[in-house]
């Protein structure tokens, strides 16, 4: 395959994301210009820069109908945009840099994670999302995470199936299951030992994957919150993804940006690895970036994936027909087991 290389950003990528149908691709980076691309041909449709973020944009998410975009940035705001026109609709001020934003299932709420800043602690805020409101309303629920030391950071927060709970992840690899309204911790899971960099759900939302700086990616059963498989790599994992059509998972990462200049690209392991989901066996790797991969998104139809790297490039991969025909002995075996 010949990947499309998107050069819209001048700084390291922080997030790439497909919309529901997979025809649109959103990217954001440390250069404060969230960008919309057409995933089929790599055409840049627009940038969300009018009265936009100042500084790094850490994360973004799009509503299920692809109409609205929410972005969270280091300028301590989350912003809501009209996807088609690129106009900003709302600003949501926070007490610290916004690390993570995520729409709930059905896109009627969204959650933000903000960093500790000048004495205010790391916070999780849940907003009602009403694009037609006159004024942006403050958070509906807002709480600190019990058990997280003062001044320490959270990295992610994700909605559990049917928006029943929220799952937070912190910089020590601890995950906590919360009540949405109060933030009461229902369960605490210690499986990773270092910062959790990525959480990614499968299409049906009964499995999810976490990637951590401890070099492991873990596949979880969402209902039981129980680890199913561990995919071990030799580098910090920054991004994970689950294929919607095959029993494949994607794991990407690389060394810290700090130590990159002192190592060769081969040692840095800046490739995306593909593991068999069940057998946890790395059967393929895709190279191309010359910096650590910070973010990854699998196409909702499983026809390809996109990765964004510290090197400032987004690479859109569309699998060759041989990928779809690919038939491993492992697949035979798993077919046998389901019989």
């Amino acid at each position, binding site marked *: 395959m010949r990947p499309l290389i998107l*050069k819209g950003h001048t700084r390291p990528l922080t997030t790439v994301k497909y919309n529901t149908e997979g025809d649109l691709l959103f990217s954001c980076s440390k250069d404060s*210009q969230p960008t919309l691309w057409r995933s089929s041909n790599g055409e840049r449709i627009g*940038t969300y820069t009018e009265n936009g973020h100042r500084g790094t944009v850490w994360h973004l998410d799009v509503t299920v109908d692809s109409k609205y975009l929410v972005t969270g940035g280091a300028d301590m705001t989350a912003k809501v945009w009209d996807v088609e026109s690129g106009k900003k609709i709302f600003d949501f001020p926070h007490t610290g840099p916004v690390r993570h934003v995520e729409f709930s299932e059905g896109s009627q709420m969204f959650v933000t994670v903000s960093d500790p800043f000048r004495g205010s602690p790391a916070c999780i805020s849940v907003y009602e999302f009403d694009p037609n409101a006159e004024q942006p309303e403050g958070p509906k629920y807002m709480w600190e995470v019990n058990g997280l030391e003062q001044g320490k950071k959270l990295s992610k927060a994700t909605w559990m199936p049917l928006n029943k709970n929220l799952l937070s992840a912190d910089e020590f690899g601890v995950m906590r299951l919360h009540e949405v309204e109060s933030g009461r911790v229902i369960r605490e899971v210690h499986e990773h030992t270092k910062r959790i960099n990525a959480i990614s759900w499968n299409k049906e939302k009964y499995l999810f994957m976490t990637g951590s700086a401890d070099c492991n990616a873990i596949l979880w059963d969402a209902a039981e919150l129980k680890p199913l498989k561990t995919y071990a790599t030799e580098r910090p994992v920054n991004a994970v993804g689950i294929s919607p059509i095959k029993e494949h998972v994607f794991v990407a990462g690389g060394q810290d940006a700090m130590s990159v200049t002192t190592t060769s690209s081969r040692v840095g392991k800046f490739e995306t690895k593909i593991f068999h989901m069940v057998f946890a066996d790395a059967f393929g790797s895709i190279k191309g970036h010359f910096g650590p991969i910070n973010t990854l998104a699998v196409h909702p139809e499983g026809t390809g994936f996109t990765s964004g790297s510290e090197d400032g490039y987004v690479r859109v991969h569309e699998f060759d027909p041989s990928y779809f025909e690919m038939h491993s002995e492992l697949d035979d075996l798993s077919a046998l087991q389901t019989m």
Partner: protein
Amino acid sequence: MADWADDDDNVDVTTELDDYLPEAYEEGPDDKGIKTLVSFRIQDGQKQKVIRKVKVVTKKKKVSKRIQERLAWKKFGLAEDAPPGPEEETTIVSRDDVHIENPGDENKAQKREEDEMIKRLRSGALNRKKREEFAAKESTILGSEGMGQGLRTGTALSQMADAPSSLAAAGGPGGKYVPMHLRGGDAAASMSRFEEEDQTTLRVTNISEDTTEDDLRDLFQPFGRIQRVYLARDRETQISRGFAYISFHYRDDAQRAMDKLNGFGYDHLILKVEWAKPSTRDDAGTQSVMKAGIVSGYGGALPQNMG
């Protein structure tokens, strides 16, 4: 009268005519499906005609209504003024074909590096001391590969023995650099011999059109580790032109592949496998100099006794 130095350098002297750019137009697609897009632009004060050839492939796919609606979206933000379609500045199609590689090969990366050293060693880019150090290391590496590789060890070492002589040829007496044109015929002769010995590339002809680089890789892989597979394609249509070059790491592997696969029936055609010849002798001579050591940015040789 005003001094010439007072003149504003940035004075706009372009008339309307100078700014005139012909309209962009497209031609085709022709019978091969090639569409030619011609546009004009001004860059660095020069008018340039940009010709892009695009192969048009029609694929029918059913998409949802929403996707169809979104295709008509206007561009906005920094892309507002851009014409429809991908912009050259922001979107490029990778030139490199990316494969899903087997990560098992990764463990061999260390070995690959050592191979690289061997290669450099052969071409005389290392100084004597390093060479000796490495010779010791190499013999242990190759020795540890087991009995099957015994032959290979022999070749590698014998080629190493050759290395100093070819180094001398490139460097002249006393290690002093002698330019190409001042060297004797001997040097040139040894150079071409050197080139031949170094030959690990096979030329494969009479390949069917459907054969891909991966197929060739599969076909030649059993004979040894492959450095590179190049399948010649039509520049425009990307259809195979029926020949390919396969570079092995070792000449022995290439030799065995040639012995086995020359005349082999593959996909209704009979393959012809031979050593790839350099296009011209002269060319090969220069190339081997380039390969043999440290060169300056202009392709000229720099002193070879560094290190």
